[in-house]
């Protein structure tokens, strides 16, 4: 299944409450004020809901970049 980048971006922007301008494909936790450790938990939960995936507890803290999020989503969709 192709990765729905558009959807992904929308969920990230909505959860972190950032604009299209602030969005970058390679954002990492801490790069912007909006993505702090509190927002991170909400972001992970929003991604879980939008892409019907469930991360492992340790992944919830270990994932620290959008790239890692994409990889984990893809892995769960192909498995």
């Amino acid at each position: 299944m192709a990765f729905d980048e558009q959807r992904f971006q929308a969920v990230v922007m909505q959860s972190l409450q950032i604009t299209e301008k602030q969005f970058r494909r390679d954002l990492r936790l801490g790069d912007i004020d909006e993505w702090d450790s509190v927002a991170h938990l909400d972001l992970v939960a929003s991604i879980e809901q939008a892409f019907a995936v469930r991360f492992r507890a340790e992944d919830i803290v270990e994932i620290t970049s959008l790239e890692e999020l994409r990889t984990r989503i893809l892995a769960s969709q192909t498995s």
Partner: protein
Amino acid sequence: MSSNSRRLYLLGDKTLSVIAKGLNGLLAAHGLPWEVVDLGYDTWLREIMDHSSRACREGDAALGFLLSPRILERPHAGRGDMARLLDRLSELAPARTVLCSNVFADPLRVQPLTQHRELTRAVAQINEDLYAFSEVNSWFHIVDHLGIATREGLRHIADPRYEAAAQMYFSPAGGRLVAQGWLRVLRALSRPSAKVLVVDLDNTLWRGILGEDGLNGLEMGPAGAGWPYHSLQKALLQLKSNGILLAACSKNNPEDALKALAEHPDCLLRPEDFAALEIGWEPKSQGIRKLATRLRLGIDSFVFLDDSAFERAEVRRALPEVTVIEFPDDPALLVTSLCDCPAFDSLRVTLEDRERSASYAAEARRDELQRVATSPEEFFRSLNMKLTLFRADTAQFERLHQLILKTNQFNLTTERLTPDEFRGMLDCQEKLVIGMRVADTLGDSGVVGLAIVNGVGSKSLTVSTFLLSCRVIGRTVENAFLSWLLSRADATGATEVHLKFHPTARNDVALEFLKRSGLRSSEDGLTWSTPVPPSSPGFAVHFVKIDDQVV
């Protein structure tokens, strides 16, 4: 955050940062003047026991204890800790505004079949302690976590993965639901609750259209297709017993509608359950306006329930102040829609609330007396009004504070004191807080007036709050209240009295009163003064007997 906002320190046994952030977002979206500050992971006992902590030191901040079922895993199932918390809160003087969640059990643990009894008992005991505490401490409010968990289900609000990852008991999704529960309590603390629910009849109160299906074709019985309407009617009776007035506004022939309400065997609501009825063919917004005039209540204290999207849109457009409930697609969800509407939320139900409907029924009889009386004087005399004035104390605190929050029309300054501010005034030497009860031959209207006098003991008294419930205005009670106040000022050695006034969109009736009172207005119109004894005659009091209990 605006400078007028009040701070709420959030304390708990687990990580609360996600909930605190979500709650701040909700508060801002609803325009509620609160700012939530998360005091960090597992701080509930530490902060409160340490007298030098932020939570203890900053006396004007409210405290919120947001607890998880994990406190039940502490020694003695957490009951000892909870007792320590409540003891400490009683000590913190002056009493603070405190919110505290009740508890629910998390049965997702080993040996669920043998441990549930013990756990359920522990939960019931802690909650009983909390309810008992809140009943005697009007500043202590419970947030119903148990209700949220029951409605939403534990697996939906808690997620062990997030607890493992971040010590959060509530998952991000669950935290949002919890934040909604806290929002409703904070909203009820800051905004008066609605007073009237206006319901449509056809396909709202019952299934069917009276004009087409006839009385016998209407369904509202406890079984079958009438069930949603039966349930709604039961919910309305419950609202009524908590002091919400019911009114009906329906496009029907008045005689037919009245007959259906009075005679349909399954109709739980009878004509006497309604404080007023507007049955006719006018636009509903007109009907609601008339109801507001008849009940002497502001349009913004009205809530409207109607199955017709057209009528809802018409009311929304003509009367944007009215809260319009979104009617569910499926009538089976009617009671759910009603429960989801926060307009009726109130943290306390006072005796006056419970008796309000009867009081409005007496009011209708007064209107009838007035109609048949040959003169206003004859009418006032026939009422045999008695006014009881008393020094406000903690016993009447809730009702008096409710008047401060709810009175819009006959309210000279509309100063919405917080519970803490108001409580502080009761023991203040320099202030006199007077409550007023009114009764007449047709019934007891209860505590319906309040004045706050400043500068007691000096020559010059300033009245910063002077208000009367709209239920009793226009019967010369307001004149008698002011006259009494001026004679008391005279008797206690004052030489002048100043009444503060602050105009609002709603208090014209208070301004008209001042203009008739014989008091002199300052140039800006914000202070109305008189020497005592007054030089101008002021109000003569003929129709009211005064029982002065102020010592």
